[in-house]
């Protein structure tokens, strides 16, 4: 098997982890978020023209407009940020990427935003009460055609073409909120999502369709440490013996996160 081939771990290999993957975070959509800045600091997710990476998130969406799944930003007031989010237009749901190199330049040739509607091929209706997986796979090479892929429930749903802009030095990563940190104002948290979020993983490669299909695993979240490649950063919110509100990285990266503004009552017994 090639270096980037996919091997789904055996049931025996997965069973120890699956015993404690029984919980998730129920974010309130008002102020809750999961702070994962140590992941940003690890440098895996820069859009610098060289790095390739992927981010996977498992969630149940509440159907609120402009709900951020996760976002990254540079702490300086330069409008440099990326985000995955859900949105609605009537009965049509959307999953979308936004990426800004600065206030006037986007990371994609088509503009800052790449939207997949629920009516599109391989689109999903995020708030249908089911668990969903959104995986963003990126090769940040300047001007690369097909540099960005959005996978919904394991299927390729949209592809974007990179502009020549870069987005280096992203130093925050937040799950469940858009964070922009404008200068001269309190930290700019907005678009909080009232989602239930279970599993979050970061890979230091652009996953292929087959690899994302293994992450999706027909809708049953697996211990991704058993996949090839394995995630660098890997979290199962509410699990893994962490003392709440700490969020333990069970990947190889040791980037501890933190559930912010949350109480232990927002840890719920749900899982994909």
């Amino acid at each position, binding site marked *: 098997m090639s270096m980037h081939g996919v091997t789904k771990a055996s049931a025996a290999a997965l069973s120890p982890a699956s015993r404690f993957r029984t919980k998730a975070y129920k974010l309130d959509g008002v102020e809750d978020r999961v702070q994962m800045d140590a992941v940003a600091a690890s440098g895996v997710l820069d859009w610098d023209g060289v790095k390739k990476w992927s981010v996977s998130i498992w969630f149940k969406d509440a159907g609120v407009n*402009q709900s951020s799944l996760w976002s990254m930003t540079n702490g300086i007031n330069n409008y440099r940020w990326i985000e995955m989010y859900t949105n609605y237009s009537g009965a049509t749901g959307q999953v979308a990427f936004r990426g800004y190199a600065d206030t006037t330049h986007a990371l994609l040739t088509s*503009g800052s935003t790449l939207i997949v509607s629920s009516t599109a091929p391989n689109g999903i209706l995020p708030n249908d009460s089911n668990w969903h997986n959104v995986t963003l796979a990126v090769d940040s090479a300047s001007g690369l055609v097909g540099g960005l892929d959005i996978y919904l429930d394991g299927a390729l749903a949209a592809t974007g073409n990179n502009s020549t802009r870069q987005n280096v030095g992203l130093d925050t990563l937040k799950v469940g*909120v858009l964070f922009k940190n404008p200068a001269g*104002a*309190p930290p700019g948290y907005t678009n909080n999502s009232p989602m239930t979020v279970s599993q979050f993983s970061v890979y230091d490669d652009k996953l292929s369709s087959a690899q994302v299909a293994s992450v999706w695993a027909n809708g049953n979240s697996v211990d991704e440490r058993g996949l090839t490649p394995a995630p660098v950063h890997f979290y199962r919110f509410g699990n893994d013996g962490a003392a709440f509100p700490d969020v333990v990285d069970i990947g190889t990266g040791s980037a501890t996160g933190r559930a912010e503004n949350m109480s232990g009552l927002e840890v719920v017994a749900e899982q994909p």
Partner: protein
Amino acid sequence: MKHYKVVAAGDVEEAMSNPACVTEDPRYNLAGTHAILSFRVPVDGCINHEQALELVQGPDWQTEDEEP
């Protein structure tokens, strides 16, 4: 269940000194004039989760960014 209260920016520190306050790092409105805090028990002037969620979806708290 958390209880929510909108607090003027200048009063945030005092409100967060309440031992029942859950909030560690507040979310402010877009103008930066007010924050919304949460508490484990009801406090004067608090609102419930449904009301808080509706509030923060309004234009004073939520943003839709322009396409560059």
